[in-house]
């Protein structure tokens, strides 16, 4: 007892006491809390907690442009009815929050953890009905056959290639806007982008492009444009086709040949240098 009282003025004493107190409170709560009721209301409670937390995150990070209630301002569009999928895409790929006003929000390292994104998504989803965050079964591509993936190529060329290039390398639009490169983009984000139409991209809702077709497009993109895509000849030069290849041949290949020829002819074979 004497030992204990001797240490009560130690600088860490307050923290130790606090930890004990917290552990005791939590333990007592766990022991005495009405377990059945907690189980029943668990999902609803978690949901409203997520919305509550999401609202706080939204107020700090998003409301300056999108308005305090998600109704939108002159600096940002209304988020009522965009759905959880739009939040997961925009914040998950780092596009939101936007770093600076500009033609288009670029992809950048994300600012929030997935848990925080889910909370914000829950809050935005509570403002109005919209597409939910897709599940693994919606965007997974393991079950697709080679034929279905090839059909995905046809779908990609019909619906997406005009902006994103034939193999999803991206391309320019008007006034500084652009269709981003799709190399190694997560299947989930491609799915969400198709469903929600982020920024200036049009959406492709399930009514015009059913879920399976989205998966086929995702599988096609993985096959032709990802870090483990096969390029039989190597050096695909951005996948832009004959223009890039011709440019390479004329601007790099030919000067190398001319240079070698000049070098061979210019070198003096004489025994005595003049």
């Amino acid at each position, binding site marked *: 007892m004497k030992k204990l009282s001797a240490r009560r003025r130690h600088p860490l004493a307050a923290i130790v006491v606090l930890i004990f107190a917290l552990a005791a409170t939590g333990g007592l709560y766990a022991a005495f809390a009405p377990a059945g009721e907690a189980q029943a209301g668990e999902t609803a409670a978690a949901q409203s907690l997520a919305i509550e937390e999401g609202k706080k995150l939204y107020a700090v990070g998003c409301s300056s442009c999108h308005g305090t209630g998600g109704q939108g301002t002159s600096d940002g569009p209304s988020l009522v009815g965009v759905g959880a999928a739009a939040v997961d895409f925009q914040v998950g790929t780092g596009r939101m929050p936007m770093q600076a006003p500009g033609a288009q929000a670029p992809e950048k390292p994300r600012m929030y953890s997935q848990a925080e994104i889910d909370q914000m998504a829950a809050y935005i989803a509570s403002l109005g009905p919209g597409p939910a965050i897709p599940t693994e079964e919606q965007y997974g591509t393991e079950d697709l056959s080679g034929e279905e993936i090839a059909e995905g190529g046809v*779908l990609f060329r*019909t*619906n997406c290639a*005009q*902006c994103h290039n034939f193999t999803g390398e991206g*391309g320019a*639009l*008007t006034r500084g*806007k652009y*269709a981003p490169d799709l190399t190694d983009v997560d299947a989930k984000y491609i799915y969400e982008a198709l469903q929600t*139409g982020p*920024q*200036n*991209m*049009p*959406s*492709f*809702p399930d*009514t*015009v*492009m*059913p879920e399976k*077709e989205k998966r086929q497009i995702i599988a096609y993109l993985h096959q032709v444009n990802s870090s*483990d*895509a*096969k*390029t*039989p*000849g*190597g*050096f*695909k030069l951005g996948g832009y086709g004959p223009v890039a290849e011709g440019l390479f041949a004329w601007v790099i290949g030919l000067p190398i040949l001319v240079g070698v020829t000049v070098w*061979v002819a210019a*070198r003096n*074979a*004489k*025994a*005595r*240098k*003049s």
Partner: protein
Amino acid sequence: MSSETGPHETVSDENLPAEQGAEPGTAAEKANGNPFADPGLPPHDDRIQDIDERAAKRSERTVALLFVVSMLATIGFIASYVIIPVEQYVYLFPLGHISALNFALGMTLGVALFCIGAGAVHWSRTLMSGHEMVQDRYPIGAEEDTKSAALAAFGDGARDSQLGRRKLIRNTMFGALALVPLSGVVLLRDLGPLPEEKLRHTMWERGLRLINENTMEPLRPEDIVVGSLSFAMPEGLEPEGHDFHTEIAKAALMLVRLEPEDIKDPQELDWSYEGIVAYSKICTHVGCPVSLYEQQTHHVLCPCHQSTFDLADGARVIFGPAGHPLPQLRIGVDDEGYLMALGDFAEPVGPSFWERG
């Protein structure tokens, strides 16, 4: 190839031939002060291989080595062709996931051809004769005798044929020669069928449903939401059909939905259905497919020459070389609630040229 430079430094002076005098005459003319005099050839210098037999042997071995490497590479080419399976892929930095067979075949064939070329160049530069040679040009004109003989023969022929005297023969002959090429011109008609009315009309007509190009199902108005983009083709067009490409090239349609109050052009609003507008996908400049749709600005951009159309304002051209707006298809809904065309495009689709007349 490095054997050319290597031995130069090691050559001792006594191996070199005596200094050769300048060409006779050169010095004399220079002395005369004629700056345009033919300077003649520079003095001939021997190569190390011309003087040193050991160096020549080294060059011979280098050339032979290059040829042997080429042989080995050719054998390697055949071996890779036999051994490596087509479906084998390997990762090679910085090439990426490449076909092992492609890479092996390209490498070996490249080495085989390069070594033959390099060997030939090295051979000619080090061992073949190194003496400078002068080859004079031949005169361009014929000899005087030949010229006069040819002119005499032509004059004799002209007299014998009486071409100058018999004017009737001469003129009819010119007429016949002038007409003959016309048969070739007439044959150009066979290059293809006449366009007739094909360029003025598309497959669209009143009552044809709009078929979703993705699902091949007829579209309903509620399928198309604001901000989405869909592509449609006329009902009855089979993708496997004989004339699919001819018809879709004219009939291709893009559908977007706008808020009716955003539509500025009264005719566009009139031809739309609940804000759904249907426009030709064929650019009016040179006929590229325009469908780079920006859903916030309602602009459609053509990828070929950046013509930009404002879909909220009758597809007016707001930028680029296109001559007139994209043709709009008038749409409505049939008894079963499917979107259908209310007629063909009012004007020919595609390049501006066909707007004439």
